[in-house]
């Protein structure tokens, strides 16, 4: 059979190709499909007829088939006459060995079957699977397919994620993946679906990795072409969050209901017409209306007349413009009870849009009591403030940390500073720089320890721009836990007081000095007088003698008498000088431990001549072994001599009784050494108290200093000197001196 004819009989595009693949013949169908002449189709035509993307594969297949004797077959897109490529199955149909001619060469018939439709269907199917896969894999739900034996055929990503499966679960059963209990539960449902052949839907709770989840599970049978169930599909929707939200919402609603019903505040809802749509139970308590009674009434029934218009206008304006004309959070207004009583309320508003309509909720609190309390507190505060502002004292207070937070007007007037400049640590500006550090330190110590604060400092007074001494004091106020919550303090200007005190001290010092000077001056005057008397006498007598001598009329007898007087006066002057010397020595007294009896004996020896000349009987009453006294010997002698001479002089006038001078030494009741000089003289009578006064004297020739000086000498030694009447006549002058520890041998 002619090869040409043969290829025409095959109902396909057929080519006759040489072993190298080059075309020798092409049937009419080829020529028609490609729109090419046989001429054009001869030779290696594949390059131009096959889609460039398929050429390589075609050549490979051809080469492999030629080499291995395998039947050649490939799929490739062949260009149609209109330029469109269509898929063809290209395969060897028949190998022919030509019988005619000399040339014996193999020919291969290649048939090209149009598989374009099938190819496209396949591609479509593949797209559809990819789509499904994409849906499954991206679904937020768990999707799975199990075979009749409950082996997983498929499980999506979400499924694996929910249970944290990382391994391939295909082929595994629930028993392998879940707990026995859980697996049994799943499989029970699977069986049910298999048996009934119907989908099922239920809610279950399953333990996931992150806890219990509530789910809606849908399971359904999968049927094959024969109507047999070959698998079970499942879709699981996790509703845990929704459940929680629902529960939360329900809880919230319940809570709000409870709040509304138990609230102390009246809660009233109104619509856009300002008509009451709801009122809670507290409304009746506060306003006196039953909640149901209020529903449907305008809100204005709860307002006094003067507020109604304002409300209506304001409400209208708000609805129109959205502009609020009062504060919605806690505005104080006046409300009206059913019984017509007006009372203060604090109102807060809320707004809610519902189905395009606005609902307003008002929370109304009766603040009558609070107002009263506030008024009372304000009044009390006002009184207190008035008190602190009018009190003629500088007052201040500070925070627990020591920062000044209040100063009354007096402080501001005094310092001339505005309040904000005194507050905090600003007050330090007014303190003298020499005081500032120590004062700040004292304040810091007080603040940290809670000790009461007190400090004297110099404060700058604005009025005269001078620093004045002030004292600032403060006490802490503590709470019930003893924590300091505030400090209250005062400042007192004690400058004048301090100056007065200073002046007083100065005056006292001055007084003491003046009186000392006066005493000294008087003493000096009297001493001068005392010394000048004998000196004057001496001078006069001497001058008189000189004059007589000049006149050659000085008689020896006159001279003798004058000289006698001169000697006497000289002696007297030296005695006075001795006394002065002793007195002057008084200041730095040289105190030694002295045996008193020995000192008395010394003085008695000095006074011996006087005693003898005045015929005085001396009576010694010495106590032996007296303690020593710490005294200046000369001063002690002065005192004793003074007392003894006084005693002698007091008795010169006595003629009708013995002139008796008693000198006694002993220990007195308090352990001091006591010396008493007793005379039987005329006594002092009413003058007893005055004898110690300087310049007081009972003697014609007395200077009035002896006892005064004696007393100060004794007192300088820590003793006393006093006088008592003697019985039956005279006086007793006694003095004490503190005893030194030991006693005289």
């Amino acid at each position, binding site marked *: 059979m002619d090869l040409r004819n043969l290829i025409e009989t095959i109902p396909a595009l057929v080519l006759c190709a040489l072993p190298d693949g080059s075309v020798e013949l092409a049937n009419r169908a080829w020529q028609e499909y490609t729109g090419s002449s046989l001429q054009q189709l001869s030779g290696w035509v594949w390059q131009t007829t096959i889609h460039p993307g398929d050429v390589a594969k075609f050549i490979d297949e051809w080469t492999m088939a030629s080499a291995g004797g395998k039947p050649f077959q490939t799929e490739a897109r062949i260009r149609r006459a209109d330029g469109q490529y269509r898929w063809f199955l290209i395969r060897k149909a028949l190998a022919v060995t030509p019988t005619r001619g000399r040339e014996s060469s193999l020919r291969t018939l290649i048939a090209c079957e149009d598989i374009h439709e099938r190819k496209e269907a396949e591609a479509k199917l593949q797209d559809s699977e990819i789509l499904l896969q994409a849906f499954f894999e991206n679904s937020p739900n768990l999707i799975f397919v199990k075979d009749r034996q409950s082996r997983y055929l498929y499980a999506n990503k979400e499924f694996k994620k929910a249970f944290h499966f990382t391994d391939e679960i295909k082929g595994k059963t629930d028993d392998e993946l879940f707990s026995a209990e859980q697996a049994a539960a799943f499989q029970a449902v699977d069986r049910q679906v298999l048996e009934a052949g119907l989908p099922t839907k239920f809610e279950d709770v399953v333990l996931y990795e992150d806890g219990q989840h509530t789910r809606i599970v849908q399971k359904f049978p999968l049927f094959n072409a024969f109507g047999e169930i070959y698998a079970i599909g499942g879709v699981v929707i996790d509703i845990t969050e929704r459940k929680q939200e629902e529960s939360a919402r329900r809880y919230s609603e319940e809570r709000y209901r409870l709040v509304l019903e138990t609230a102390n505040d009246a809660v009233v809802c109104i619509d856009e017409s300002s008509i009451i749509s709801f009122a809670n139970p507290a409304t009746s308590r506060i306003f006196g209306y039953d909640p149901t009674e209020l529903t449907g009434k305008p809100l204005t029934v709860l307002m006094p007349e003067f507020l109604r218009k304002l409300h209506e206008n304001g409400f209208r304006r708000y609805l129109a413009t959205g502009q609020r004309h009062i504060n919605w959070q806690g505005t104080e207004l006046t409300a009206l009870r059913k019984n017509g009583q007006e009372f203060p309320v604090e109102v807060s508003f809320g707004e809610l849009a519902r189905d395009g309509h606005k609902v307003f909720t008002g929370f109304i609190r009766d603040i009558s009591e609070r107002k009263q309390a506030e008024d009372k507190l304000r009044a009390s505060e006002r009184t207190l403030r008035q008190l602190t502002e009018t009190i003629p004292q500088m007052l201040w207070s500070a925070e627990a940390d020591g920062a000044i937070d209040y100063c009354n007007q007096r402080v501001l007037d005094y310092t001339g500073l505005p309040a904000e400049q005194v507050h905090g640590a600003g007050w330090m500006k007014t303190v003298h720089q020499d005081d500032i550090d120590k004062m700040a330190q004292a304040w810091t110590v007080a603040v940290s320890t809670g000790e009461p604060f007190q400090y004297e400092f110099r404060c700058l007074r604005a009025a005269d721009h001078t620093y004045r001494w002030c004292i600032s004091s403060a006490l802490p106020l503590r709470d019930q836990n003893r924590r300091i919550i505030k400090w209250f303090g005062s400042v007192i200007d004690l400058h004048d007081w301090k100056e007065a005190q200073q002046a007083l001290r100065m005056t006292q010092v001055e007084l003491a000095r003046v009186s000392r000077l006066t005493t000294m001056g008087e003493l000096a005057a009297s001493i001068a007088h005392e010394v000048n*008397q004998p000196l004057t*006498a001496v*001078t006069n*007598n001497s001058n*008189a003698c000189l*004059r007589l001598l000049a006149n050659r009329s000085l008689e020896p007898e006159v001279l003798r008498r004058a000289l006698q007087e001169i000697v006497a006066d000289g002696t007297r002057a030296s005695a006075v000088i001795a006394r002065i010397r002793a007195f002057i020595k008084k200041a730095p007294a040289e105190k030694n431990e002295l045996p008193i009896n020995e000192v008395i004996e010394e003085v008695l020896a000095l006074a011996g001549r006087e005693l003898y000349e005045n015929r005085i009987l001396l009576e010694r009453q010495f106590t032996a072994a007296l303690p020593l006294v710490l005294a200046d010997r000369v001063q002690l002698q002065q005192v004793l001599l003074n007392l003894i001479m006084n005693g002698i002089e007091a008795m010169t006038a006595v003629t009708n009784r013995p002139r008796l001078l008693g000198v006694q030494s002993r220990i007195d009741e308090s352990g001091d050494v006591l010396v008493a000089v007793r005379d039987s003289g005329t006594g002092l009578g009413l003058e007893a108290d005055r004898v110690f006064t300087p310049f007081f004297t009972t003697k014609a*020739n007395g200077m009035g200093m002896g006892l005064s000086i004696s007393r100060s000498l004794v007192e300088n030694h820590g003793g006393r000197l006093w006088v008592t009447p003697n019985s039956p006549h005279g006086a007793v002058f006694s003095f004490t001196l503190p005893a030194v520890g030991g006693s005289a041998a």
Partner: protein
Amino acid sequence: MTGGAPVVFVIDDDPSVRSSLKFLLNTVGLQVESFDSADSFLHKKPPDAPGCLVLDVRMPGLSGLDFQHELARRHIHIPVVFLTGHGDIPMSVRAMKAGAVEFLTKPFRDQDLLDAVRIALERDRARREQEKEVADLQRRYDSLTSREQQVISMLVSGMLNKQIAGQLGTAESTVKVQRSRAMEKMHADSLVDLVRMIEKIKGPSEKAS
């Protein structure tokens, strides 16, 4: 009536001073009477002779200055020489203002005391003489008739005889007679002399009133 020899009255509480002053004053021939206190001096009637006081400022009882006041109060115009052991300036100023002759601080130079005493005595003598003269004039004046006294006082005031006569309602010749008689009684040599005499009489008496 010139009195006897001058007497110095020494008042001092100190017997030594007293006797030494007496001794000193005696040496210049002065008569001395001494007292131990101001009171004892006041108790004694002073002799009618020139005298002075030598007085210690500081004395028991009445002090020197108080005593000076007391003398003035009693119209005893005796000069005072003060002695003091320790006088101060205010004290001496007061004493001198009150008429003290001298204020001497003990011990003093004997000549100072003697000079002071001499001045005091001279002053007392002069005072006494003046007192005596006034007393004489007064006596003469007292011897005038009241009309003569009237005429004299008018004359002293500068009136003429005629004016006096006119005022008294007498004849001018009568006035002339009365005038010459009065001048004779007063031992006045001239009208000027008479005026001086009348002034001496009136002066002290006016001061004393």
